[in-house]
């Protein structure tokens, strides 16, 4: 099952369980082998029913794109269910066969929750970023500017330098949230005027592969530039979390870079305001300077 389908199946299962737990707690309790009573009713409706509905809402609506927190909460909820059923089993109020079957079912669901949560968090470490921009320049010009990798630091804010080596390899140096990162890359596919695809070599600080594709926009609208990056961020998911905090999440970074690329190609310069002196930058957008002139010599 794909990650999305497993996760949304868990979301729908939550809703399917939560509604009867909340509306008919006695019948639900009987079905899982526990004799109904005032306390059982409250526990079933609130601790189980309301919780399942919240989990369903979390997965299917509120956290839809990345329901990591809800899935982890579900694992905790599964453990609570097991504890409640276990406690009931120890008394004479329970039907041991039914309650045992219910515990087995909960354990199965817990396993599925753990798998789903791990998949979501791993998908996060293997980040993909895609972005596109249309530039009012002939395709050959846009391609040629990009293909000369030494031009890239002009619009890629984090890039310090790109040095060309022999046999299509290149050495890249970039500013990272802490210090700098370096990597060597090789071109794996190239069609002049159309496509450049590359990947980092083994042992790089930033393991990634990527491609940039140049297409004619319809009706004389210039050139479409489509970029795709696949990253294994340094430090796994912790590194990604850190990079998000500093506003350097790869997707935003790519979008910002493409905006500046368009500016350089169309206007010859990067647009800089007093609020955003570096030009487009997701990080700066969180922390704008006031819109008043920058002191000479200020960073």
């Amino acid at each position, binding site marked *: 099952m794909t990650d999305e389908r497993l996760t949304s199946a868990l979301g729908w299962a939550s809703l399917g369980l939560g509604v009867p737990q909340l509306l008919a707690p006695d019948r639900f309790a009987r079905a899982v082998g526990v004799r109904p009573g005032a306390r059982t009713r409250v526990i079933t409706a609130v601790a189980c029913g309301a919780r399942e509905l919240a989990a369903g809402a979390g997965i299917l609506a509120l956290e839809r794109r990345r329901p990591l927190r809800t899935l982890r909460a579900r694992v905790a909820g599964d453990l609570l269910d097991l504890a409640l059923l276990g406690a009931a089993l120890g008394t004479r109020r329970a039907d041991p066969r039914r309650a045992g079957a219910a515990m087995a079912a909960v354990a199965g669901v817990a396993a599925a929750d753990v798998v789903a949560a791990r998949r979501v968090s791993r998908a996060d470490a293997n980040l993909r970023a895609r972005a596109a921009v249309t530039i009012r320049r002939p395709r050959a010009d846009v391609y040629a500017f990009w293909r000369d990798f030494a031009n890239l630091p002009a619009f890629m804010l984090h890039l310090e330098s790109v040095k060309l080596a022999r046999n299509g390899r290149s050495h890249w140096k970039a500013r990272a949230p802490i210090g700098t990162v370096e990597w060597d890359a090789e071109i794996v596919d190239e069609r002049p005027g159309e496509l450049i695809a590359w990947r980092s070599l083994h042992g790089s600080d930033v393991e990634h592969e990527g491609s940039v594709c140049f297409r004619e926009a319809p009706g004389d609208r210039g050139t479409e530039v489509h970029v795709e990056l696949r990253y294994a961020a340094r430090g796994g998911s912790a590194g990604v979390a850190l990079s998000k905090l500093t506003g350097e999440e790869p997707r935003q970074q790519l979008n910002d870079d493409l905006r500046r690329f*368009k500016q350089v190609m169309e206007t010859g310069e*990067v647009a800089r305001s007093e609020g*955003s002196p570096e030009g487009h930058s997701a990080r700066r957008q969180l922390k704008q300077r006031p819109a008043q002139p920058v002191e000479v010599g200020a960073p």
Partner: protein
Amino acid sequence: MRATVYSGRNRVQVEQVPDPRIVNPRDAVVRITSTAICGSDLHLYDGYIPTTKRGDVLGHEFMGEVVEKGSEVANLQLGDRVVVPFPIACGNCTPCQRELYSLCENSNPNAAMAEKLWGHAACGIYGYSHLMGGYAGGQAEYARVPFADVGPIKIEDGLADEQVLPLADVFPTGYMGAENCEIEPGDTIAVWGAGPVGQLAVASARLLGAERVIAIDRFGYRLRMALERAGATDVIDYEEQPDVVAALKEMTGGRGPDACIDAAGMEAHHARLPVHAYDRVKQAARLETERPHALREAIMACRNGGIVSVVGVYGGVVDKFPMGSVMNRSLTIKSGQTHVQRYLRPLLERIERGDVDPSFVFTHTMSLDDAPQGYETFKHKRDECMKVVLKP
């Protein structure tokens, strides 16, 4: 230098800030000789434009003398007297090439911010929130002008500052509002809001051949100016005639105006207190960003198949928008931040020829240091204030 700085809702201060300097090769620095407070600055002043920060230098209507220029600015010389259009536009991207300058794709370094609110971004604007780029404004002694090879228009001697300063914004804005009405002989145009943009929309509608132009406002002195100076043929004081739609029907033989111009925007008033209070409360609670009374009325009043031209500023979302009226009656809504660069040359020629003298909108001249008083006077329409020009 001294500059007018936003320091929280209903507060501006004139403060000492660093002097601007050339940042990019296509920049120029202008020493400002005259700068105006715009009605849309009052939306900032009132705290309704999101992403306005304390410390921002305000002002997007200014003119002055070029005192510094970057290496790529060939069309201007040091000492040239220029009016600076409020939209910052590169001149190179597809919208600029199509003369849709306020849609410039390259001049807003905070485009991602605007995309969150509007789906796509618009151009950068001087002193008009960080959503519009975070550029320092022109109610100051000096201003940095990006893409100076595209925006500023050179003014020869012989015209007073007050005659040409309206080219920065209000005159082209009123003109575009009227142009969007696609005026034909015999047309009646109704204009909501008789502030400076409304006055110049009235004047432009007459220039473009409208038979009748009806100005709608609640201040007698503004309606008098519309009649006596701008060329309105009729006026409606909506505090005396709260049912504006009915009044317009009566004046137009039941048809309604052929086109309606909303020159009021997001902080409109309504004569009926409960209606006004409804949107006022929602706006204060940030449940909607606008009070769209003028827009709703303009839509309801417009004749079947007519045009509603919106030049008043809106920022976010409106409630109770009469879409059924737009759809069932085949109305066209036209709008936009003004593509000022497109109108500079033709409107300057009209001023030079004497077809129109937009300086009539200026009622108050103050020193830059009195900007806080200027904002208060303008906001509360004290002393019959129509528009304030500041002299640094």
